[in-house]
């Protein structure tokens, strides 16, 4: 699989400017960001449906667009498989005709063989003569994929491929889509505003905000090291907090927050050394906050670092976990409205510790679980 994609384009619209640049070598790239950030516009530029004002688009060593050299291939010449948001299946054509739609001009036998192959690989057998309105959401998604894959595209574009589906179906189809994408071994760009989706589907994620790229990283790096507070907020991370630097060292960093001095690990790959007293953003994953059992004696500070005390002021049951809202005992304004920290506790722990009745807890956070966000 080759299929390197490089995009560097600008496009001015009334009230919005897209100015992005990214490269992808990996098989599946995610464009992630809030709605209106320019993700779909980027796909349309890639497909040749919208002409950028300036820049260059190269896919698989073919120049699709180059403003300086006056190159602008038509959508027909680009051979890109585009799976539209809502799928855009042709309502007047059956499944088989939808899938064969892009194969006009191929010899008849070729066309039939290719269509049959796509139908079989996507498990659409038996639905050939149905119309799109007679299909379920998941089947429509597969027909849209099949129609795009049938033309053997150089690149596959998927615009919010799961947004048309109900929540329970989304998760199943997300995994199914992941398998299809890796099975066909076609480079793909997936647009989504849902971080879990981006993380499950893509190998590398480009984060968009307001027409710009604010981070581009392998998915694991993005998950553990968001480049900034803005990225962390777009990712929907809980407990994105702000404190003051006490002391920054290459391997560790001390932060004053809500009257506590927290100790955090500094990023091993890009040490961040802000001067003392400067403001700093960080986040704490709610599932990594440890409540301390009261039946095991006093906590020891070498084992339990970043020790704090607080009261549960709110809780919500998410089925397998409880989400608790803790307010610290230290005086002052709470960090997130009426609470300081969100903590996630599995159901079993919730029951064993009898959290339902016992609302006052001591807890600790390992320094490796406090992630510093460079500004």
């Amino acid at each position, binding site marked *: 699989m080759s299929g390197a994609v490089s995009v560097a384009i600008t496009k001015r619209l009334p009230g919005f400017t897209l100015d992005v640049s990214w490269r992808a070598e990996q098989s599946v790239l995610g464009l992630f960001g809030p709605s209106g950030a320019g993700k779909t516009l980027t796909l349309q530029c890639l*497909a*040749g*449906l919208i002409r950028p004002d300036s820049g260059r688009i190269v896919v698989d060593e073919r120049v699709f667009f180059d403003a300086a050299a006056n190159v602008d291939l*038509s*959508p*027909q010449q*680009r*051979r*890109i*498989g*585009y799976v*539209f948001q*809502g799928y*855009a299946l*042709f*309502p*007047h054509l059956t499944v088989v005709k939808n899938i064969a*739609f*892009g194969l*006009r*001009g191929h010899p008849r036998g070729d066309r039939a063989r290719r269509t049959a192959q796509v139908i079989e690989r996507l498990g659409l057998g038996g639905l050939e003569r149905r119309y799109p309105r007679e299909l379920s959401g998941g089947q429509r998604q597969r027909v849209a994929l099949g*129609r*795009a894959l049938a*033309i053997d595209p150089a690149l596959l574009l998927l615009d919010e491929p799961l947004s048309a589906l109900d929540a329970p179906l989304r998760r199943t189809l997300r995994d199914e889509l992941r398998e299809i994408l890796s099975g066909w071994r076609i480079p793909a760009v997936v647009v989504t505003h849902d971080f879990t989706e981006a993380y499950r589907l893509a190998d590398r994620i480009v984060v968009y905000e307001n027409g710009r790229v604010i981070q581009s990283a392998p998915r694991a790096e993005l998950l553990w090291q968001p480049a900034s507070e803005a990225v962390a907020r777009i990712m929907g991370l809980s407990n994105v907090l702000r404190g003051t630097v006490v002391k920054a060292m290459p391997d560790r960093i001390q932060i004053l927050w809500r009257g506590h001095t927290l100790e955090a690990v500094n990023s091993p790959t890009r040490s961040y050394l802000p001067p003392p007293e400067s403001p700093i953003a960080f986040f704490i994953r709610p599932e990594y906050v440890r409540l301390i059992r009261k039946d095991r004696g006093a906590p020891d500070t070498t084992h339990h670092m970043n020790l704090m005390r607080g009261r549960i002021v709110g809780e919500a049951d998410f089925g397998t976990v409880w989400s608790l809202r803790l307010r610290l005992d230290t005086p002052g304004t709470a960090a997130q409205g009426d609470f300081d920290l969100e903590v996630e506790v599995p159901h079993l722990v919730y029951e064993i510790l009898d959290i339902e009745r016992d609302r006052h807890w001591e807890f600790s956070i390992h320094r490796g679980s406090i992630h510093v966000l460079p500004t």
Partner: protein
Amino acid sequence: MDSFPIWLSLRVALSATALTLLTGVPTAWLLARKRFSGRNLLEAVVVLPLVLPPTVLGYYLLLVIGYRGPVGRGLAAMGLELAFTPGAAVLAAWIGSIALVIKSAQAGFETVDGQLEQAARTLGRSEWSVFWSVTLPLAWRAVLAGTVLAFCRALGEFGITLMVAGNIPGRTQTLPLAIYDRVQANQMGEANALALVAVGIVVVLLFGLSRLARLRY
């Protein structure tokens, strides 16, 4: 009963409808899908035949195709004549009915999701192919409805026809003109028979249209 006006009217209305489809559908597509300078002007001009008095339209048309008009003189130089011929009746019916096809087809094209056309383009189809395999199949009902209305309108065209084709029995006297003539001559039996034929044709067409409209694509 003289059946000449019936056959003439059917021939004129069919020719005018063919002309209307050839010119009206592309115009409707342009108005629905393209942004160009002069678009608003074209949109206004297109509805003029619906709102102007037919005699006014006929008067101007006569100025153009009459033997002293620009088109009339050009045709005369080639030894042809248009004014007061069945051809002029076709032209009159075309002008009287084209707005119905344009408006109906334009509305039909506008309801076709532009994303479907985009999808067809990414699948390698040319603009021509996109129109024939996506746009038109999804808007055919509106185009057909406009066409049937235009045919009925062409069949009943009176004012413009009278001005540019005249009322020459056996040559340019169409069905509506013949009915008018018979009433003027107090031949009420003949007028009645011709009127019933006109009603019959229109009723059959509209009934057929309502049946077709129930089909899906």
